[in-house]
C-alpha cells in the first residue's frame, strides 16, 4: 500500500484487442470508487507511462498488477517478467492472459506463415521486394531494434508465475469489481485460483434455457439459422455452454447467441475443446457411420470452434511446428 493507504495498481496490455481495458472503464461510476481506493502507477493504454518508469521502481513496488493480453512477442514476454518482478500480486486478467484467447488461434500457424499472409498475400498488400520486418536495422543514427514475433502464442502463466486468473473475453464488470473488492479487503483465495467466476457451475447452469439434449441431424453456424427461443444446442447451433465455466451470467445466450467458451473450461474439464467435441458428438442423430460422418462434417473448423478462446492453454497448445519433433 502507498503511504496514503491506497492500493498501488498497475494495468498492462500485451497481445490483446483492448477489450479488457474497456472492461475496466465499463465499471462506470465504480471507476471513481476504484480511483478512491487505488493509485494507478502504470496504465499505458489510458495514461502516459513509459517502460522506464516501471524499471525505475523498486521490486514489489506495485501491489497488484492486472495483466491482460497473451504473450505473442519478445516485448510481451519482457514486460511479463518485469511486471512480475515489480508486483506483489500478478493477475492474469482476461481470456488472453489466462488462456491465449483469439490471438492464440495464431497457434494454428507459425511466424513465417503469418508473415507471408500479412506482408505478401493479403489482397491489399503491395510488397514487390518481399520486405519483412527485421528485428534489427542499421540506421545512420545507429542500430534500431524491434521485438521479435514468436511462433507460438503463450499464456501469461506459461512464461511467468501468476497469482490469480480472471477469465472472460472480457471479464464482466461485476466480476472485476468482486475481484478488486477481494483484493482491497485482503480476502484473497489460494494462490493459483481462478477468481471472478464459478468453480462449480457451467454456463448452461446460468443460462435462461434448459438444455434437453435433443438429437440433431444438422449443425448450423449462427448466421445460417433463425434460432427459436429455446436452447441453441438443441437446435443444432454449437454452444460451448456445457464445456464452459459459469461467471458471465450467460451473456451471449441471453441475447440469442451461442456461448463461445470465453470463460474457459468448466468444472472437472481437462481440455475444453475435447469436452465440447464430446458434447457435440453426443447429440448427433445417426445410427450409421456414414450418417454420423455426414452430420459432423458440418463442423468446418473443429479447432477454431472447440478451442476458440483456449488453444494455447489446451493440452496440445498449438499446431505441430515443422522441423520440431
Amino acid at each position: 500500500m502507498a503511504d496514503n493507504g491506497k492500493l498501488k495498481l498497475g494495468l498492462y496490455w500485451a497481445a490483446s484487442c483492448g477489450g479488457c481495458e474497456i472492461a475496466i472503464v465499463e465499471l462506470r461510476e465504480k471507476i471513481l470508487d476504484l480511483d478512491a481506493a487505488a493509485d494507478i502507477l502504470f496504465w499505458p493504454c489510458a495514461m502516459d507511462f513509459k517502460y522506464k518508469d516501471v524499471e525505475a521502481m523498486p521490486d514489489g513496488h506495485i501491489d497488484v498488477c492486472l495483466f491482460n493480453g497473451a504473450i505473442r512477442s519478445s516485448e510481451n514476454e519482457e514486460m511479463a517478467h518485469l511486471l512480475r518482478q515489480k508486483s506483489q500480486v500478478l493477475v492474469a486478467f482476461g481470456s488472453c492472459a489466462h488462456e491465449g484467447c483469439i490471438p492464440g488461434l495464431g497457434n494454428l500457424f507459425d511466424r513465417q506463415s503469418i508473415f507471408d499472409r500479412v506482408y505478401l498475400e493479403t489482397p491489399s498488400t503491395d510488397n514487390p521486394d518481399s520486405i519483412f520486418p527485421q528485428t534489427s536495422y542499421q540506421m545512420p543514427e545507429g542500430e534500431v531494434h524491434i521485438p521479435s514475433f514468436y511462433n507460438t502464442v503463450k499464456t501469461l502463466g506459461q512464461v511467468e508465475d501468476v497469482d490469480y486468473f480472471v477469465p472472460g473475453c472480457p471479464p464482466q464488470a461485476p466480476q472485476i469489481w468482486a475481484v478488486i473488492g477481494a483484493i482491497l479487503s485482503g480476502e484473497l483465495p489460494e494462490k493459483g485460483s481462478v477468481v471472478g467466476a464459478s468453480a462449480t457451475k457451467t454456463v448452461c447452469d446460468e443460462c435462461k434455457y434448459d438444455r434437453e439434449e435433443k438429437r440433431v441431424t444438422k449443425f448450423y453456424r449462427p448466421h445460417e439459422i433463425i434460432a427459436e427461443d429455446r436452447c441453441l444446442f438443441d437446435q443444432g447451433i454449437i454452444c460451448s455452454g456445457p464445456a464452459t465455466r459459469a461467471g458471465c451470467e450467460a451473456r451471449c445466450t441471453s441475447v440469442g447467441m451461442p456461448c463461445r467458451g470465453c470463460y474457459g473450461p468448466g468444472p472437472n474439464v481437462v481440455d475444453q475443446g475435447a469436452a465440447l467435441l464430446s458434447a457435440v458428438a453426443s447429440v448427433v442423430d445417426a445410427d450409421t457411420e456414414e450418417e454420423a460422418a455426414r452430420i459432423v462434417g458440418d463442423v468446418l473448423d473443429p479447432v477454431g470452434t472447440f478451442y476458440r478462446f483456449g488453444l494455447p492453454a489446451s493440452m496440445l497448445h498449438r499446431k505441430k511446428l515443422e522441423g520440431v519433433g
Partner: protein
Amino acid sequence: MSDNGNGFEPRIVGFLCNWCTYTAADTAGVSRMKQTANVDIIRVMCSGRVDPTFILKAFVEGADGVIVSGCHPPGDCHYSTGNFKTFRRMPMVEALLEQYGIEKGRFHWGWISGAEAPKWARLVNEFTEQVRDLGPLDWKRQLQSKED
C-alpha cells in the same frame, strides 16, 4: 521389437474395448501370432468410453500413434450402442488431429471383434510400420521449443 534400420521404435497406445478388440488382442497373444511389441494396450469397458481427451493426452505424453478399437456396429456392442458414440466422435477427432498437424497415419479407429484375432495382429504390424515411416512425433519437444 522389430527395427527397419532407422533405430526408431514407435510408441503406440491402443484403447481397446473389453468385450471385442481386447479379447481379439488377448487371443492373438495366447495363440502366439507374430506381432510387433510397439502397442501399449489400455483396456476400456467400451470404445464409447474413449474420451477425446485420452487420445490428445496420449499424443502429448509421447505416443507416436493411437489406436481406438471396439465392437462392430450395429449389434456387436455389449452395451448395444456404446460404439455409436465412437463413430459419432471419431470423425471429429480425426479432423481435429489433422488441423493440429498430426498426420492421418498416426491415428486409427475401427472395429475388431473377439473372433478376429488375426485382424488385430495384422493391424498391429501394419500400423507399427506406418507410424515408423512417419517418424517420432515427440509432442513434448513441440511444447518446449524455444523462441529465437
